[in-house]
């Protein structure tokens, strides 16, 4: 079987191009792009792709999630080659899952809110009873945090926040864990945002870096166009993949405690503030960050 025959049967869309002309496209690509194969072969790329963003990606290379006509495509572009992976169904399932989680969190919140005070009202008579009660309280608190992480997010009022000021709060919160670690901080900017949401974002990112990353850890802000990027960078080993870390339930390591909601929450908070969360490898560093709009 020739390679071309294999591509004919592939479940991934594939477009080969040379000098802006379509040289080959497999049936899956034709289906995903909604084109008639015979009519676009040998013709300019834009005629087959019919999307300026997709064309730019094909010509300049890179990887991006793009909504092209009715499909959500994960597009990877290498010189002369364009791979299209349909993510429509996966994304829909993820959305359903998120909605189910929000509903569940809503239902759990009321009984949980009642349990805390009830446990406080109990007086243990023996040491064993006290141990059990403490354990129960800790578990209820853990459940409450879990529910909080899954609940819909509404950012609080915005005010100008000097990022240095957020760092001094973080330093106090993480004092114990920062001892003996090398953390470099460069936060010269001021941003109009919800300070509590921002604190939570940086706390989660820093918590992850302290747990899974390697020193030196760098916490920095930089302005790029009309977006302020806040990043936690560490020298940890390259990870096999980055994007899935933002899915609920993903944990960096099975040895450490946690529900795998940290980065998921970071992304939801960032989006609630009108921004986005991202993770990637840059040189020798793992970069976890958010970009937030600057008014």
């Amino acid at each position, binding site marked *: 079987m020739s390679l071309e025959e294999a591509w004919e049967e592939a479940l991934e869309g594939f477009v080969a191009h040379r000098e802006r002309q379509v040289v080959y496209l497999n049936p899956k690509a034709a289906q995903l792009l*909604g*084109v*008639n194969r015979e*009519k*676009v072969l040998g013709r*300019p790329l*834009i*005629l*087959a792709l*019919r*999307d*300026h*963003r997709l*064309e730019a990606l094909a010509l300049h290379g890179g990887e991006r999630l793009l*909504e092209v*006509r009715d499909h959500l495509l994960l597009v990877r572009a290498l010189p002369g080659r364009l791979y299209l992976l349909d993510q429509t169904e996966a994304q829909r399932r993820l959305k359903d899952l998120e909605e189910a989680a929000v509903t569940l969190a809503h239902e759990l919140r009321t009984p949980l809110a009642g349990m805390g005070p009830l446990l406080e009202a109990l007086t243990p008579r023996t040491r064993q009873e006290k141990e059990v009660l403490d354990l129960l309280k800790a578990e209820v608190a853990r459940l409450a945090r879990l529910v909080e992480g899954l609940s819909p997010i509404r950012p609080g009022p915005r005010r100008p926040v000097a990022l240095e000021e957020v760092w001094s709060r973080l330093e106090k919160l993480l004092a114990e864990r920062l001892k003996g670690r090398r953390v470099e901080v460069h936060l010269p900017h001021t941003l109009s945002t919800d300070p509590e949401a921002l604190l939570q974002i940086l706390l989660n990112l820093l918590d992850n870096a302290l747990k899974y990353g390697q020193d030196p850890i760098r916490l920095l802000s930089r302005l790029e166009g009309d977006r302020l990027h806040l990043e936690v960078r560490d020298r940890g080993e390259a990870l096999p993949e980055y994007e899935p870390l933002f899915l609920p339930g993903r944990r960096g390591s099975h040895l450490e405690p946690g529900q795998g909601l940290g980065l998921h929450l970071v992304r939801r908070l960032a989006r609630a503030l*009108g*921004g986005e969360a991202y993770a990637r490898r840059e040189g020798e560093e793992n970069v976890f960050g958010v970009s937030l*709009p600057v008014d």
Partner: protein
Amino acid sequence: MREALDKALNQLIEESLRMLSLVREMTQKATEALVEGDRAKAQEVIGKDQEVDALELKIENEAITLIARHQPVASDLRLIFTVIKALTDLERSGDYAMHVAEDAFVLAQEPPLKRYVTLPEMGRRLLEMMDTLAKAVAERDAELARQVLSMDDQVDALYEEVSRELLTYMMEDPRTITKALTLLRVARSYERLGDHLENIAERVIYWLTGEVYKAPEDVY
């Protein structure tokens, strides 16, 4: 000489498809900004209008140069005029997408009047129209261009539906008037956008078949 002309003509078509794709992106993002109440997204769309305007100028200049240099006739000339006429409609389409974004920006400052159902549906139909139009141009298929015309009828019907619905809101509770009027303007922008796409589809039919096609309601 013929080869150079063909190349230049193809380039005109390609540039026009890029412009159409840009307007499509704006329309999609404007609708998302409206539904999600996302002001950042609305601003992004407003910024893109300059790109559309710049593309219009660029393509128009290329078309004029082409006429001066090659003195095309028959179907070649028809194509060039199709592009030049369609450019104006495309540019206006971009303006309407921007107007939707501007209104979405204002609406996002307060809780929505209601859950938007028909308006995003209008936006979705427009995207479908643009996809079909792009396919008609890329594959030189006049039949697809005719389909675009009937799709615009659906957009018009949705516009009627939204207008009536918003009118009942205003009659029931005068406090809703400000928001309802803004929403009415959004619906109007969508409806106008659809009309411009219809115009382009008529031009495409003319280019591909030579027949001057006017949608029935345009004939008086």
